[in-house]
């Protein structure tokens, strides 16, 4: 998604990326980025919360209008939860048991084979 933003921007179309993975988007390098400090999958706002979704869009539009230059990141003031412990869980090996790691390895192998099969059928 960040690569597409760069492509459009390089050809005269202004862009703003809405995302939840701050380090990944900033590593790629995009013109404008609205970062929501939410679990991945909620870049457009909190589920079942129109006020949160409208506020997220409004902030993205303001970033589009007012960014002073490339690599402008604005962080949404919205909080996912008063308890930040959700941030410790995503792909965190330190929090998984050896049994869970083995189970995920098997699952990942299976999904990778499915993806290769789907791509091969194109």
């Amino acid at each position, binding site marked *: 998604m*960040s690569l597409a933003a760069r492509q459009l921007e390089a050809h005269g179309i202004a862009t703003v990326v809405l995302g939840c993975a701050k380090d990944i988007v900033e590593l790629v390098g995009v*013109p404008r980025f609205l970062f929501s400090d939410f679990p991945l999958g909620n870049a457009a706002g909190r589920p079942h919360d129109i006020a949160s979704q409208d506020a997220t869009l409004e902030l993205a539009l303001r970033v589009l209008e007012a960014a002073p230059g*490339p690599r402008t990141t604005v962080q949404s003031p919205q909080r996912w939860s008063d308890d*930040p412990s959700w941030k410790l869980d995503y792909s965190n090996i330190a929090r998984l048991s050896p049994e869970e790691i083995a189970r995920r*390895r098997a699952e990942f192998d299976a999904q990778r084979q499915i993806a290769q099969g789907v791509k091969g059928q194109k």
Partner: protein
Amino acid sequence: MTDTEDQALGFAPAHDQPVPYLARIREYYGTLGYGAPYRWAQYVDVPYTPLRKPLAKLRVGLITTAAPYQADKGEQGPGAPYNASAKFFTVYSGETSVDHDLRISHISYDRDHTTAEDSNSWFPLPALRRAAARRRIGRLAPRFHGAPTNRSHRTTLDVDCVELLARCREDEVDAVLLVAT
């Protein structure tokens, strides 16, 4: 520094910062035994196009990584496990004047802490329609576009990004929101 000292100073807990996805993913897949770590795209120079007119006079487009629901491709609903068969590999487009059933089961979103019940949290087409209705933006583009999450940077750059640009030009958009999942 102890938690008590942190609290006395009004500091947030140490882990209350943006999730370090790059480090997490690197360690995660390394531990699962997947060879060389993924090489993320990384640039020094970043292009920039300022808005030339007020947003209320501009046509705005939308790009998503979400996938159209496909009934024959297994579980894609809220809380579905990662479903690679629901992936798509070429750019697709849909009319913005009608509603769409887009899912993210093919994406590694945070399944521990969100369930993907409400597509408005990753596909803000209704919110954009509201913004257009109140004249916050000039017009909504006639189409939105779906961007594949191809693992190959070469394919993304040479095929998908080129196609997305061509479609956005056909739509004559001035600005685009790209929503990552």
